[in-house]
Every structure is written in C-alpha cells, then in structure tokens.
C-alpha cells in the first residue's frame, strides 16, 4: 500500500500500547470520579475544603490496583472513558479550583450546533454498532484522514465568525482531543472513542432535551 493510499485507509490503525491504556484507565476514571466528587460535595452543601478532600480521595482511590479500586470495575464494564469526557471534567475542575473566568461559546447558535453534533454522532455510532447503517462508521475512526477532517469541522465556527479563540471553547476542546488521539492514540486508537463515549452521549441527550423543553416553555410563556 503506498503512503497516500494509507492515509485514507482504515486498514492500518495506530493502537495504543497496553501500558498507556492502563495509565489512561486510572487517569481518566480518576479525573471523572474527582469531578463527580466535587459535584456531589457542592450539591450536598459541603464546605469547599471538604469537597476538595473528597475529590482528591476519589482521585487517589482510582490509582489503586485490584478489585478494591473502582477502576477495576469501571474498566470491566465500560473500558476507558473518552478523552473528551476527561478533558471536560478536568477543565471544569481547574475552573472551579482556580476561579478563572470560564470560556464562552460565542453565539448560542454554535453551542446548540455542537450539542446537536454530539447527539447525532452518538446516534450514528449506535446504529453502526447494531449494523443498521450501510457503511461501517466505526471502522472509519481508524482512518488517518478523519482527524484532519474533524480539525477543519472543529475550526469552522472560528473561521466563519472570527473573534478571540477563548470564545470558541468547544473548538479548542475538540482540537485538544484530536491532538491526544493523533499523538498518543488514546483511548483505543479510534477517533470516535476519543471524541465521545456512551456516557457523555447520554449526558448530551439529556442536556439537549432539557434545552428544548426550556426553549418551548420560554416561547409559550
């Protein structure tokens, strides 16, 4: 196979080494658990210090080996989380900890478009898993050209609208996810697994439905 053909082929995937996958399991689930700890602590009205102690304890717990650690069971059931889910949690943790001003997504059209894109991508991948699509979408995720196309799509809001980069936080996140996927092949070597996992997709579905309900209510009132 020549070099150009290999770029557009899904027949030579770059997969991560087992050691890197193990590292990602602990780092990824540890970050998600820490984020969950902060959310729960905040919801329960714990003091900030207690909330961060809880989050740190969950993060440390995730690094323990064996069946007494959550990663043993989370990995068994769900394998590793997506890079996007981990980055979203990590960014949220950093913002909460450092009280830095949040990025904004510019006009609401683009935040809605990103949400819709995530929901639609998840549905397409689910239908593909069940072989209900005429093409094999998941296998395309091993193609070297797909991350490049996704870079272009991710930068579309910035190209069309301009403005400072901090107003395009989702674009930045997608580019960061693609960078991790291309350079380290995490979490599986397939770009779709890096961008979206089923839990994140379910969250996006719930958020999408809530957005629609809120809009309907505001229109009717």
């Amino acid at each position, binding site marked *: 196979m020549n070099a150009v053909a290999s*770029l557009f082929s899904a027949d030579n995937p770059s997969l991560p080494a087992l050691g890197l996958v193990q590292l990602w399991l602990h780092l990824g689930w540890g970050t998600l658990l820490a984020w969950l700890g902060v959310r729960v602590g905040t919801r329960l009205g714990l003091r900030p210090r207690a909330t961060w102690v809880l989050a740190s304890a969950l993060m440390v717990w995730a690094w323990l080996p064996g069946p007494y650690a959550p990663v043993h069971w989370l990995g068994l059931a769900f394998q590793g989380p997506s890079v996007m889910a981990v980055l979203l949690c990590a960014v949220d943790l950093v913002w909460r900890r450092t009280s830095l001003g949040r990025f904004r997504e510019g006009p609401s059209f683009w935040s809605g478009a990103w949400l819709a894109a995530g929901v639609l991508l998840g549905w397409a991948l689910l239908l593909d898993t069940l*072989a209900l699509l005429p093409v094999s979408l998941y296998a395309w995720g091993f193609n070297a050209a797909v991350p490049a196309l996704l870079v272009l799509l991710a930068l579309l809001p910035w190209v069309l609208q301009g403005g400072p980069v901090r107003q395009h936080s989702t674009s930045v996140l997608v580019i960061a996810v693609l960078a991790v996927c*291309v350079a380290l092949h995490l979490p599986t070597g397939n770009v779709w697994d890096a961008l979206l996992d089923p839990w994140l997709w379910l969250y996006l579905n719930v958020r999408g439905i809530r957005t629609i309900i809120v809009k309907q209510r505001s229109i009717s009132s």
Partner: protein
Amino acid sequence: MLIRSRLLRLLCALVLAVLAMAVGWVLRPAGPVPARAVVEAVADPVAVDVTRLHKVAQGDLPMPAGAAAAHASSLLVMPPGGPSALTVFWFSGERESGPGVQIAASQWDRSMQAWSAPHIVANRHVLGAQLGHGVRRLGNPVAWMDADGRIHLFVVATGWGGWAASRILHLRQSSHSLNLDALEFAPVRVLPLSWLWNTSHLVRNAPLPLADGGMVLPVHFELGWKYPVALRFDAQGDFKGMVRMSARKHLLQPTLLAQSPDHWIGLLRDESANGKVGAVATDDGGQHWRDLPDLALDNPDASVGGMALGAGQLVLAHNSSPGSRARLDLSHSSDGVHWSLLATLASGAPMDEFSYPSMAWADNSLWISYTVDRQRLAWQRFAPGGSP
C-alpha cells in the same frame, strides 16, 4: 488570537488539518498489502482426495482435574519437526460461563502418539491484573501462530453481563518455549471493535492464513442482532482493520474457506427458526463481502467449522439435525455450495450434544475436535487414501 481576515483563518485551519494528517501519517505503521489467502492447507493437495479420507483414530481429550465443563476447542498446527503436532485450547471449569473457567491446553505428542496432560494457560484473575481492569468470564479461545513462530490466543472475555457483553482479548505467547509446561501468555490488548463500551464481539472459529504471513480472524457481533465481521492481522499479529461480512442480522460464528487467493467463502451458524447454514463470499480478498443463498444443510443454531485442504477440496463439520445437536457430520464440497456427507462424526439420543467442531491438517491427517455434552472434548483423526 484575533485574526480579522476570514481567508487567513481558513488558511490557519487548513495548516492545522494538514499537520494533524502529517503527524498521524508519521506515527502510523505501514499498511498491509492486499490480502491473499493461502489456499492449500495440505503440502501436496493433489495427493489428497478429500472423498477418500477415512477415520484412523479417535478418543477423548484429557480434562483438567475437577473440571465438570469443557467447551469450544481450537486446534493449532505446530511447526514440523517439533515434539508436538498439534496444540488444542479450550475453556474448562465448573460450568460454562462460571467464575472458575480457565483456558486449558493439551499437545499431541508425536513420539507418544497421545495427548499430553492438560495445562492451564490463562485465567481471568491473572489477566485482569495484567490488563488493569476486571475480566468477569472467559471463553472460546482461538489460536494462531504468527510468522515469528509465536502463538496468539484470541479469547472471549466478558464485561458486565453475559456473553453479549463480551470483548475479544488478544493474548500473545510470552514464554520462549512452545512446550506445554512452559507455555505462557500475556495480553496485547482488548481489540477495539465497537463504540458501545466495546461490546459485544465474540470469536469462535480459526483464522484464515494469508500469503503475507498474516491472517483474517472471523468474529461476530451478538447484542440483539447478530452479524459476522472479518478482522485483519499482519504477520506479527498486529490488528490491521475490520470489515462487516453480511447485511443479515441472524448469522454468527463464521468459518472461512479459501477457494482461491482472492475468492473466499464464509459459512455461518444461523440463529433464525428453521435455519440453514448461512453463506457469504468475497472476491477481492476480504475487502468487500456479499450474502449468498443459504446452503441446503440444516443448522440447529449451532457452530460449524470448516477448512479448505486445497482448491476445490473443502470440508465442513456441522450439526445436521434441524432441532438438536445430537448428530455431528463431516461433509465435503468442491464449490462450497453443494455438500455431500463424508462421515458421521458422532450421533446420539435427542438430548445428547456433539458441537463446536474445530479442524486442522497436521502430520498428513485431518484432525477434528468437538465438545461432547459440554462436559468433555473428543477428537478424531482422518487419513487420506481410504475407499471413497
């Protein structure tokens, strides 16, 4: 960064995209050459008339002490000149899908002309520790030897749930010796095959060897709908891609038979009511597959196992009763469509079960292993040259 020109922003985006592609290309391993199958499993296929194969030996495989269940054997041909002709792998434990199930193996000793005492080569606790996450159950080992003479094992490893929550775990020989007592395996990875938490792919049948030293491993998806998938591996056993083999949703456990380097057929278990043996074919070395009409052979939702001894010399072990696994037949064909009975391997009362056949050609013989009542494994050896 504030860039006011839209054209300049577009240029920046294009540069980033090209950079992503370039990095991906640099870090990407070399792509495989087009897949061409090794058609002749037999060194001198002209000398073997498949219609004249006759049984020369049979028996039971030795079981591990205390094992009440055994199932899903996989035969692997060992290098010529070594002490062993074959290694057989299977899963064994207190019951199918039980927590104590392990992967067992035995070798056919050339000098003793007998199977060795079984040896455990994989268990879920050790594999879980090596993977960094839990493995709930093990099953269906499938063995292959790469171009460097290392054995690879593909094992069904379940997540949270039953067989439908399975993943395919790729193990590679970590010991230097092929001798059974020293044989050890270490995980390469869980194969990434689906987006849905990487469920629910299973492996069952032997790989199709390729001329480049690699192979095509037939697997299937079985969460609700069931469909076959072909996985490509290179000569060192590195995963090279996947192709769906059928548009139908009730076919599983494909077995691959090459009729020429590019033209292969896949025969499949059919879970639909009144099922027949399903069939698919490829004319371009597995890049594209098409559905074929079902074979005339009945299939009681049971695994079939086949191989090509040479061009136009196909053999298939299959259950032939419509509603039970009480009879296991060996059939032959020259075109993969029309099959004739060669021998009945086993038959019994309606509740008896002879199932999950595996076959290999070694030491100038066709070897077949199969499950008996999910409790033990039996084997038969066929030699060429008998009366048709």
